[in-house]
């Protein structure tokens, strides 16, 4: 089989359903061989975006390109993509091997060659010996792998995964994450996955596109997404974040709105005094002390979970602040006043 460029480009695509935009003027370029996850809450348009690449949804506006060539208007069976469906969509009247062979048969491959490729795929997915099972006779994890194999065996330019691990229990999900990543590394195909599980996105992807209300809020590698979120939404959706509205009061200084506490800011090109901005601080970057410099809060809740302790306090402006620190660190008592402190570098500035 000839090598094809698996790079994907969506150019200003939009899709409206009865007036409401499911996908709103989205442009994104994905490189060949990349593992990209589209992450967002349900109804954010991420599935619509995926189905635009596969051909099940036609954009109202914009262009979809695979390997540099426009595929807009082409039906799914003329696109070099393969999809792992959310419910796997395995053919119930076919065996495991027949399911995997399906795409090869549709491409009119020779019988002996199909048999060879199916066997190799069963081997790759640790399904050897399960070829003759009926779909009703395999477990959820196996079904997931059969769905993956059925799509991978046709060697598509792009593999699309719609909530691929959503139906599995936690332990199996962890295991399949590792397997999925291993397969991607081995095959070097372009993978585009859609998920609402931020941990899955962080674990799997080379780059994550965070989607909200039909738009891509940020498209970057997992570390950037986590450490330097581009918007309030990203900071809040990916991981846990304390978001503080603040006003710049001087060089490297800001005051929390409605609270009066001052906090240090770092970085160049800070907005001039009087500007409003939002600070995002991860709970693990906050230390709690009895006294000292920082933001004062009344301790409302303490949750011990083995290695760490979550401490929730309420600021003078009524806002809640969450810190997560080693269980061995200082622990205030409930109802007591304590100081929540973080370094200037830990406060990521989100401009409105």
């Amino acid at each position: 089989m000839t090598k094809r460029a698996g790079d994907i480009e969506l150019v200003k695509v939009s899709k409206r359903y009865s007036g409401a935009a499911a996908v709103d003027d989205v442009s994104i370029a994905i490189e060949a061989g990349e593992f990209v996850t589209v992450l967002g809450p349900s109804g954010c348009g991420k599935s619509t975006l995926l189905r635009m690449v596969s051909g099940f949804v036609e954009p109202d506006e914009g262009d979809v390109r695979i390997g540099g060539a426009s595929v807009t208007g082409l039906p799914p069976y003329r696109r070099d993509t393969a999809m792992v469906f959310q419910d796997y969509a395995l053919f119930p009247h076919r065996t495991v091997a027949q399911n995997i062979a399906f795409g090869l048969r549709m491409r009119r491959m020779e019988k002996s060659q199909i048999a060879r490729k199916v066997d190799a795929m069963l081997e790759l997915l640790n399904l050897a010996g399960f070829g003759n099972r009926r779909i009703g006779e395999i477990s959820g994890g196996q079904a997931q792998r059969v769905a993956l194999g059925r799509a991978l065996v046709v060697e598509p330019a792009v593999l699309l995964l719609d909530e691929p691990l959503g139906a599995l229990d936690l332990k199996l999900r962890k295991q399949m994450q590792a397997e999925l990543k291993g397969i991607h590394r081995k095959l070097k195909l372009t993978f585009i996955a859609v998920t609402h599980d931020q941990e899955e996105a962080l674990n799997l992807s080379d780059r994550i596109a965070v989607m909200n209300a039909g738009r891509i809020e940020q498209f970057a590698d997992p570390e950037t997404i986590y450490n330097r979120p581009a918007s309030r939404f990203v900071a809040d959706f990916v991981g846990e974040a304390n978001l503080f509205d603040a006003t710049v009061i001087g060089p490297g200084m800001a005051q929390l709105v409605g609270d009066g506490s001052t906090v240090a800011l770092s970085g160049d090109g800070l907005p001039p005094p009087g500007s409003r901005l939002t600070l995002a601080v991860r709970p693990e970057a906050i230390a709690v002390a009895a006294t000292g410099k920082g933001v004062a809060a009344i301790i409302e809740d303490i949750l011990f979970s083995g290695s760490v302790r979550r401490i929730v306090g309420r600021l003078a402006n009524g806002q809640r602040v969450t810190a997560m620190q080693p269980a061995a660190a200082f622990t205030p008592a409930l109802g007591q006043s304590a100081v929540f402190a973080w370094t200037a570098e830990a406060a990521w500035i989100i401009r409105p």
Partner: protein
Amino acid sequence: MERISGGSPTILPSQRRRRRFALAGLAPLVLWQLVFFVVPLLILLVISFWTMRNYRLEPGFSLENYRAVFADPALWRSLVLSLETAFFVTLACALLGYPVAYFIAKKAGRFRIVLLIAVIAPFWISIVMRISAWRILLGENGVINQALISLGLTSEPLGGLLYSPVSTAIGLVYAYLPLYVLPLYAAIDRIQDSWIDAAKDLNAGPVRAFLEVTLPLSLPGLVVGAVFCFIFGLGEFVTPALLGGGKQLLIAQIIQDEFQRRQDWPGGAAIAMVLLAIVFTLLLLSMRYLRIASGERP
């Protein structure tokens, strides 16, 4: 898909009591069926071995009646004609019913319930009235001939429309179409759209996706509908009596003739038994198929 696992689970006494209670609820129906279906059938079976002498039933054990069923060419012809008619009606119902069932299950959206009721609605009117209406449509001075003449498509009315095996078949297709549409609808409704999408995603065009996924998964519905149509069609009496014209008789008309006009009860009973044997064989075969299709190993 349901699978029955091997081995019988242990039944608790409370469960047994509940099961006995449920069975007690079935008792009236079972009794009714016994008295008014099974017993008459057994009587019919016994009579089929008796003989007729001087217009009187004579008990005994004779296979003469069964020999006659296969030896009498007229009987044989109408049995074959009945099988042919039932086969044709089944085929026509399948071809006409499939698009209807597919549309209701997959494309009708919120009109689904309305359309399903429309499919069932003819059952609210007696079959005799509905079939009589076809006489008005198909007759020599009927609606269809009148229309053809006034459109200038023909100068003479078409005579063969009514009182022929063709008109019987038309009436039967009309009468049984809902019987075919309903099981087909149920089967097609269970086919997930994502299965069809998956086929298309794996490079199957619309036709191949239909042949590879939709059609094989509709098979249970096609089989159930065919069983309904074929079995009812094989034993149908009213429609051929009203539309068939009496020149070429179907097997049910022959049976009626034996009992009523010729007063040959044993002869009629034997034909009925042969018909019943055919029907039972078909039922067993289709049930066997459905059990395998639903995932039970034979």
